[in-house]
């Protein structure tokens, strides 16, 4: 049985990859959209376009929060283009969104489905608003596998990663919810790039979906090359899906993560308490090692790039 999940996203090129990977490997109960890479109207339109070109029209899409909980909205058109999904011509969407707010969609689905997983790959506003509106919801969520934050450096600021920086208050709500969390941060996702060689592999698959994916990755990689000097666009969001389906893609360690809500230079940073020497210290509980707060997340510390691409390319072959 595959894992029941909702993908909460702000497409976004790498969000599109997360949807494609998730739709074939998870039991996707729905896609919820949120403000983020571009405004909500566009992330919602883009989610509909992705399900249209990939033939996933049965997956319900619910639109969610159009602004962060507290701070003003910010977007990243410099990465994703004005549409949020610039690059290839995409077909017009075939299916309308459902007539239900994403926050209510998440709550209702959680009530109906046991062991529901959430895969948030955008700002965490929908999940946070749902947790605050429905205090009992936390007990119904088996796990959250999120793309966001970093064990090391940031991208939006030296310290902060975009998804967390775009709504730090929401991230605080999620990280203090008590729900088991897998945090897939920039420190690992930056290591998995859509290099020219990888994009050539995608093209060789030969189906229409793979052709569109390759063109999306071309645009996205070009932008990240200009912005950050990367060899290939980082496959951030699909790694949050991969974390649930293949234990060999990512390595995790439990630690306590807190979100900086007040810092002058570190606003929106995921402060990971990494005060131990070796992974084994966590189990052994060595003497004299500072621990801080009990762990509230499994933080990704390593990634197997080849293994991810093997999985992703395999899945792409199943599309029309």
């Amino acid at each position, binding site marked *: 049985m595959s894992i029941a999940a909702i993908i909460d996203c702000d497409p976004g090129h790498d969000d599109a990859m997360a949807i494609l990977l998730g739709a074939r490997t998870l039991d996707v109960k729905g896609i919820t959209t949120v403000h983020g890479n571009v405004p909500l109207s566009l992330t919602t339109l883009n989610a509909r376009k992705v399900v249209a070109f990939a033939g996933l029209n049965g997956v319900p899409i619910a639109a969610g929060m159009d602004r962060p909980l507290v701070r003003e909205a910010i977007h990243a058109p410099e990465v994703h283009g004005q549409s949020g999904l610039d690059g290839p011509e995409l077909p017009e969407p075939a299916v309308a969104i459902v007539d239900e*707010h994403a*926050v209510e969609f998440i709550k209702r689905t959680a009530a109906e489905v046991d062991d529901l997983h959430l895969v948030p790959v955008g700002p965490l506003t929908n999940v946070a608003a749902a947790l605050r*509106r429905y*205090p009992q919801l936390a007990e119904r969520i088996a796990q959250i596998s999120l793309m966001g934050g970093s064990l090391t450096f940031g991208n939006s600021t030296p310290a902060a990663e975009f998804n967390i920086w775009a709504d730090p208050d929401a991230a605080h*709500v999620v990280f203090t919810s008590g729900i088991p969390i897998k945090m897939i941060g920039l420190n690992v996702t930056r290591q998995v790039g859509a290099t020219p060689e990888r994009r050539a592999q995608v093209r060789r698959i030969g189906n229409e979906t793979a052709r569109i994916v390759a063109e999306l990755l071309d645009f996205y990689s070009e932008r990240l090359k200009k912005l950050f000097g990367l060899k290939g666009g980082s496959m951030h969001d699909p790694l949050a899906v991969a974390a649930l389906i293949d234990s060999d893609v990512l390595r995790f360690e439990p630690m306590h993560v807190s979100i900086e809500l*007040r810092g002058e230079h570190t606003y929106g940073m995921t402060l990971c308490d990494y005060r131990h020497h070796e992974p084994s210290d966590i189990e052994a509980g060595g003497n004299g090692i500072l621990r801080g707060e009990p762990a509230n997340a499994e933080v990704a510390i390593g990634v197997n790039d080849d293994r991810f691409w093997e999985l992703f390319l395999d899945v792409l072959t199943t599309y029309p």
Partner: protein
Amino acid sequence: MAQEMTIPVYLDVDTGVDDAMAILLAVRHPALEVRGITTVVGNVDLGQVTRNTLQVLEVAGAGDVPVVSGASRPLVAQARSAAAVHAADGLGNASLPPPSREAAGDDAVAFLRSELLAAPKPVTLIALAPLTNIALLFQTAPKVKEKVRELAIMGGAFGVGNATPVAEFNILHDPEAADIVFRSGVPILMYGLDVFRRVCFTEEEVDRWFASPSYLASRPYPDTPPALVGHLFHFLFSNFRRSFTSIGDAGCVGAVIDRSGLTTELLPVYIETGGRYCRGQTVVDRRPRDLVNRRGEEAVESCTAVALDIDGDFYREMFRQAVGNGSTGTG
């Protein structure tokens, strides 16, 4: 005199001694039509707040007003209790009988959204509690803002605070929510501590117009509006060791009923969400405009009417007539 229409209102409360007085005034006064009450964590925990609200409505003979519970904790901050001010039950140990009904739902945001969107004309919201529900409402359903004629808030202070030297409890309890609400663009009445403290009754007046300790001792519980008000006042007298006390939140309801006893001015209000000592403060810019202009600061258009001065007697009389002994329909 021209026939005046009643004002449709929704209350958001964390009942609470003075919330109870505010509810009694709102449902007893002929000028208001209370269409629903939502509850939020604040003075006491959400379950107790909701129970208290249902109990107070039953004493008031308003057991048909829909009550829907909402947020059980603030957006970002930790919940804090004000049981030291309101007693463990939030009602000064009133010992009211268990309510005969339960809340109509647990999704205050969805309730307010559907009510407001369906309202033919904009309505008034009266928020007497931390602003968590209202912030979630505005952020998840921004369209409702067009349906808010005014949001009357008991909260904040431009002078002295209560929960901290500068912060008032409702704002301090959820500063992030307050920040959202005060920046929402909705017309706001800020009924702060500066006026809140100034609508007072003495012990002697409470005995005469509401209920005396000996009358209360003769009843199994405070079973009428004047008796409940009397009980709440006597609790406050003894809890604060004072011989006079304010009607608190009820004054904010009074200001919605009739604004003529209140002096207000549109002023910029900012919520301090950081700050070492000042978190939760409502920073009200009362500097003279010519000074601000001379400093070259950009003009800020405010839609927050800050209550600067109050005619205490005017609202005392309104409260006494609506919920005191001898008013229409009371026992």
